[in-house]
């Protein structure tokens, strides 16, 4: 069905042609994370003065409802990372869509597909490119946080907690990545990047509504990976969270496979 050698060749070329975007995002996320995390010691005082004045719903929307979080490095990281994760997910969704769609929009797919490669090999190489790119961006956030943790985290900095939050919340990123590949695998006649980003924002809002409405529509929380895999749930690791990890993993896998099947069957849009 596919040759690993060909995937390797396509992958290295894909990384090479997208390296500037990947490095740019790594630097941006590293810097933003560093900027927030280095301020950890002074955040608690500032938060008690400034954040208390903000409406509770707004703090909830931003994932900052729990003021005590600000005195614990891992919880503070979880809160900040919850917001950064939206940016990383948007990057992943648009980057993944563009990996497929841009080849057809720019007609470079005619060049790429002129080699003795299959559509599946092209698709897999794009998926692996997206996985590597997103992992590097996530890793940048993790490294940035860890450096700050060692500098100013004090006793509340727990390396393993930061690692666990980073690892499990990565499911959110890969879930949106798989959705992007499903859409762009099916068609590139529409703006797949916009659609993927729109889907992401809808799920984020649904998660927020689920949290806001509590008992009335709590199920909405499970529709949003941002809520399902928030730092509290990850660190507590209830059975519900474990089941969610399993379900989201299966859906992600299904989206990737379905995207590949559709990509293999459809005409290139050139």
């Amino acid at each position, binding site marked *: 069905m596919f040759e690993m050698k060909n995937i390797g*060749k396509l992958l290295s070329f894909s990384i090479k042609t997208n390296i*500037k975007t990947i490095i740019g995002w790594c630097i941006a996320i590293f810097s933003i994370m560093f900027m927030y995390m280095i301020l950890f010691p002074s955040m608690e005082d500032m938060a008690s003065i400034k954040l208390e004045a903000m409406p509770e719903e707004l703090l909830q929307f931003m994932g900052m409802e729990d003021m005590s979080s600000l005195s614990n490095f891992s919880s503070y990281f979880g809160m900040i990372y919850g917001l950064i994760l939206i940016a990383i997910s948007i990057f992943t969704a648009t980057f993944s869509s563009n990996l497929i769609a841009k080849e057809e929009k720019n*007609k*470079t797919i*005619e060049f790429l*597909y*002129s080699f*003795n490669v299959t559509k599946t090999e092209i698709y897999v190489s794009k998926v692996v490119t997206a996985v590597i790119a997103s992992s590097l961006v996530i890793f940048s956030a993790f490294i940035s946080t860890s450096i700050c943790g060692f500098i100013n985290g004090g006793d509340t900095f727990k390396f393993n907690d930061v690692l666990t939050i980073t690892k499990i919340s990565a499911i959110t990123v890969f879930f949106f990545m798989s959705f992007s590949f499903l859409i762009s695998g099916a068609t590139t006649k529409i703006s797949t990047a916009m659609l993927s980003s729109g889907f992401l924002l809808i799920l984020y809002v649904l998660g927020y509504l689920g949290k806001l409405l509590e008992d009335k529509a709590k199920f909405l929380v499970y529709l949003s990976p941002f809520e399902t895999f928030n730092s509290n749930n990850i660190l507590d690791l209830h059975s519900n969270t474990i089941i969610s990890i399993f379900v989201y993993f299966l859906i992600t896998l299904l989206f990737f496979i379905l995207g590949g099947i559709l990509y293999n069957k459809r*005409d290139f849009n*050139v």
Partner: protein
Amino acid sequence: MSLITFENFCKYYGKFCAVNNLNFSIEKGKIVGFVGKNGAGKSTTIRSLLNIISPTSGKITVKGLDSIKNSKEIKQFTSYIPSEPFFYDNITVKQLFEFCNKFYKNNNTSYKDLAKYLELDINKKISDLSLGNKKKVSIIQALLKENEIIIMDEPTNGLDPLMQQKFFDLILKEKQKSVTVFLSSHNLSEVEKYCDEVIIIKNGEIIDTIDMNKHKLEPKQIVSYTTQENTSNTFEFSGNINDLIKDLSKINLATLEIKNKSVEDEFIKYYQED
């Protein structure tokens, strides 16, 4: 021996029929021209052959291999020069060729030699190249591997006359190695000069196939005259030219023009007629 075969090939885009029931074959070692108006179905046919798009119905085979199921195998011995080559802007020509070489086994041709012959600077970025130079990149890419088939869509578009000549010299060398060339072009003089056979497509259907070697052996004249009485006439003539002169001498001529009928004249009617 038929190398490429189209059997009842149809391609629809929604309800629009781009190609309707195409049946033809291309023999090994020939240069076959593919001529037709814009939108006649040439690019659809070529893209289907390369599995960039798939037929709605019918079958395309290359060396007996199915164009969809065996696309990967077919591409091992097939090259394609698109009408508008598109590459990745942020890499150099050299990086692009080195990427190509990773896929081409047993290639004895050096991209450096070809680039030198076609006067292409391999250290330039793709984004800095003109259309003509991008075309050269595409030509070199196609000639880097051991081909059995080269498919070309408007290959000389953007090339200056000297480069066009150099390009066809390269193609004729490939022909000597029994490489089959499928050439889609609007440049009728190059089709006339280099093709062994020409397939004419109109509104998604093949309307004529011309054996160019036979055509060259049976020259025709286009005769146009006006008489002193101000009547004019134009007709095609093939046969003994002396008989023609004898017949014309009986007419009270005011003007007379006799010219050899080129294949270009033959083709142009397919562009004009509705």
